[in-house]
Structure formats: structure tokens, C-alpha cells
């Protein structure tokens, strides 16, 4: 197993955290992991993304010029990362916010109404969980759903841990 993943979206969509969640879950299943956030311009605004590598073997390059998996949470991210996905790769896109469909046919593209699912479970901020839930369903070899759920307690700061019930609900909803 060796996946090179990009998670991308708006600043507030929790894409960096989503990447970390995958890492901790996989790490606890004894995989090698790396996570680099785009720390972009030394200033506010714009989009955010992170490069995640999860592998059975030691990771050499942690950079992800050509992801095998891309999760894009908004339209600008789709535009930016769709072309980069490796042929045969997987693209998960947030169809709540992205109207256009991906164009590539040499990769698997999966839309998920991440915001809608999140809202349905009573939160405006758990869209990232929906995307991760979907990914886990499609690529269970990265980490089990159980590991992902356990990782929540590590990745989410104490202050926000009260939202974990909702997070888990959204994860499961998107996963099923």
C-alpha cells in the first residue's frame, strides 16, 4: 500500500486536519505517514491543502506532485488538482459546493455532498469528515474506520473535542 494524497479546499474547511486524521489513523496501524500543509503565502486568505503520504514502506519523498488520491472540497481546488491526479487515481470532490463535474475519464471520480451531509447531522463544519468517511469506504487499506474514529481524539484539540460525536456521525454517514 502506498498512497499519495492531496486534501484541498478553503481555509476554513479543515483540510489540514483531515490530512492529519488520515495520518494518525494509518500510523496507528503501523504504516509510514507524512503530512505537509501548504503554508502558502505568509498571509491570510485563499485556499489551503496538504500533501499526505501513507505507505507500507519507509517514505522517501514526502512531496506529492502527482497524487494517487485527491480530495477537493471546493471549485478552485478541483481546477487545481484534477489535472495532477495520477492516471488510475481517485478524485473525491465535494459536490455540495462544486457544480461542475470533473472532466477526466482516466481516473475514478466520486462526488459527495459533504456540506449537505454535515448539515444534516447538525454541523456546518464537518464537511471534511464526510470526505474522509467516503475515502475510508473506497480505500479501506489506508486505515480502518475504527482507527479513523480513534484518531479523532488525538487530532482534534481538547477544546473542540465536544464536536466529536457529530464528527463520528458524519464520518459514518459518508462511509456507509
Amino acid at each position, binding site marked *: 500500500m502506498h498512497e499519495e494524497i492531496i486534501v484541498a479546499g478553503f481555509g476554513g474547511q479543515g483540510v489540514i486536519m483531515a490530512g492529519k486524521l488520515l495520518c494518525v489513523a494509518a500510523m496507528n496501524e503501523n504504516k509510514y505517514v*507524512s503530512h505537509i500543509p501548504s503554508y502558502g503565502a505568509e498571509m491570510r486568505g485563499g485556499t489551503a491543502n496538504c500533501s499526505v503520504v501513507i505507505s507500507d514502506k519507509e517514505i*522517501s519523498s514526502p512531496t506529492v506532485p502527482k497524487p494517487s488520491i485527491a480530495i477537493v472540497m471546493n471549485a478552485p481546488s478541483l481546477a487545481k488538482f484534477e489535472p495532477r491526479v495520477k492516471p488510475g487515481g481517485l478524485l473525491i470532490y465535494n459536490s455540495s459546493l462544486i457544480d461542475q463535474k470533473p472532466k477526466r475519464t482516466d481516473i475514478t471520480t466520486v462526488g459527495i455532498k459533504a456540506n449537505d451531509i454535515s448539515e444534516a447531522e447538525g454541523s456546518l463544519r464537518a464537511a471534511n469528515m464526510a470526505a474522509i468517511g467516503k475515502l475510508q469506504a473506497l480505500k479501506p487499506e489506508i486505515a480502518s474506520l475504527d482507527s479513523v474514529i480513534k484518531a479523532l481524539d488525538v487530532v482534534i484539540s481538547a477544546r473542540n473535542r465536544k464536536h466529536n460525536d457529530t464528527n463520528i456521525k458524519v464520518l459514518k454517514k459518508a462511509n456507509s
Partner: protein
Amino acid sequence: MNEKILMKGNEALGEAAIIAGCRFYFGYPITPQNEVPAYMSRRLPQEGGTFLQAESELAAINMVYGASAAGARVMTSSSSPGISLKQEGLSYIAGAELPCVVVNIMRGGPGLGNIAGSQGDYFQSTRGGGNGDYRQLVLTPATVQEMADLTVLAFDLADEYRIAVLILGDGYLGQISEALVLPKPTGKVFEKPWALTGAKGRKPNKVASLRLVPETSLEELNLVLDEKYKKISAKECRSESYLTEDADYLLVAYGTSSRICREAVNELREEGIKAGLFRLITAWPFPAEALRIASAKAKKILTVEMSLGQMIEDVKLSVKDPERVDFYGRSGGMLPETDEIKRRIKAYGN
């Protein structure tokens, strides 16, 4: 506990400093190393230590100077432009032979440049951007684990040789999160009879680099330093040779670019091309002897840097037949690409 935790490079470095007994940190914010001061400001008070945000990098390095003179284990961190501002202070630290750890999480330059990871400060670190003849030990981690392990080592080396030890990482290393097993304290103890602790029951101690009278005394200091630098060069070279014994093509790199090189070596090997990687762990002293051995059989030596060519001078100065040495670099915060490295190596084949 040998448990793995996921940790950011900058934070791993901070925690490792605390493990190494560092209780004083003076710094000034700058991206991409802001997690270091943030981490220290949270953790040091918990350990009874002192975090102080200085009014500038100049103030920070001089607070380090003072704290070191008082006998403490002390650290500062910054990124490229901030490190430029510390050059005078570092030169004084060299002259006064004060131990300290200075972290440079390099970003794109020159000038304000940008905040992406870079390796543009190799010359400054290894040749001394400050005035006069001096050297500082330069450690070049390549993983979060090394960010932590080399930090622990750095404090011991600093105290052992009374020297500034630079941890020269790039922005990517500061920002990356990886699995980390926290290092253990080494337990080494260093006496500091020269420290300024009050002249009780002893002659006054003086910490200074000024050598005016007699005329020769500065040269004496220079020769003492030179002796020390020679000793360090003999004893403290560190490097890693990966698949170099039979390598027809040798890559030389450090930090994040060395990981990209390692990937390239693996892929080249899969294609049956005998590539190898020589990775610096100390940039000064430069592991010349080990490189000479690793490069013995190489037809070509490709230096890969996140700069337009700085380490290459040390590579050329170290190897036999320096005509073999070639260069591939990306600058301005861009990363070298595995594919381009492979393309170049394959092109040598013909």
C-alpha cells in the same frame, strides 16, 4: 515510552530541546518556523523554563549570548532573513566560544523572497555570514525524527566544543508531520567553569571576543579556534551512504532534497541503474572523507540542492576528479523533482 506520535518538525525540535535540558529560548516570529516559539512559549513555563519573545532577531541572539554566558542551555530559532540579522551575534558567539543551538528553517531568498522551503543559506551557515574566521557546527536533518534526534545531539556538541550548533532545516522539514519516537536525554554533563555565575571564591570570569593587547592575542584566539575546528572536522563528520558501494551514479544532497533523491535512487535501482545517495548529516564539518569513499566508483556525481548551487563547492573540494560533479537545483522554494533527477542520471548513461 517508545510510542510513536505524529508531530510537526518544528514542534518535534522544540520538544527535543526540552528533553535535552534546554530551559531558555529567545526568539522572534518568522514563518516557516513559528511553531517553534509557539511551542516553547507553551511548554517552557510548564518545565520551569523561560520563553522570551525578543524585540528582534538581534536582541534574540544577544539574549542567547547572555544566557549562554551565564551557563545555560539555550536555543533560538528563525528563518533566513532573521538568521541574516543574527550574523554579527553569531560571530561574537564564535569569538567568545559560547555554546548554543541556533535553528534556521530556511525559506526562499534572497531578500524577503517567500516562505517556501529552501536551502539557500548553505554558504551562510557553513562559511559564516558574520565577520572573521570562524565556523559553526551545522546539522542537517531530513526527517521529523532527525529534527528531534539531532536537536538533542546539538546541545551536547555545543557544550562539548563551546560552539554554536546550527540546525539547518528547510521550510518543508519545519512543516511536515511524521511519526516520531521522542528521543531520550543523553545524560551527559558538562562543566562550565568559565560561566558568569559571580566571582565567589574564584577569580572573575570574563566572556569576550575583544583581543586588543598585546597585539598578538587575537591571533592566539584565532589559532585556538582553528585547533578546535580541526578537532571537530576530525571527529564530528556525519553522513549517510545509501547504496553507494557499487554506485555508478552518486547523488549528493541533504534535508528534504535528499529524500527526493532517495526516491529517485530507489526508482533507478528498480530500473537496474546503479544509483546511490550520499546524504550529509553535518554540512560543517563537511564529511569529505566519507564522500570520497562513497564516490570512489561513481562515473558521475550529481549534486542536488534547493538552491542554485552552494554545497556543490564542498562536493568538488572533496572528491577526486571533480570534473565528475554535476548540478541540479531548484530555487525560490521549489523542490527538485524525482523525474528530472532520473532523466539526468539516465542521460549520463549514453
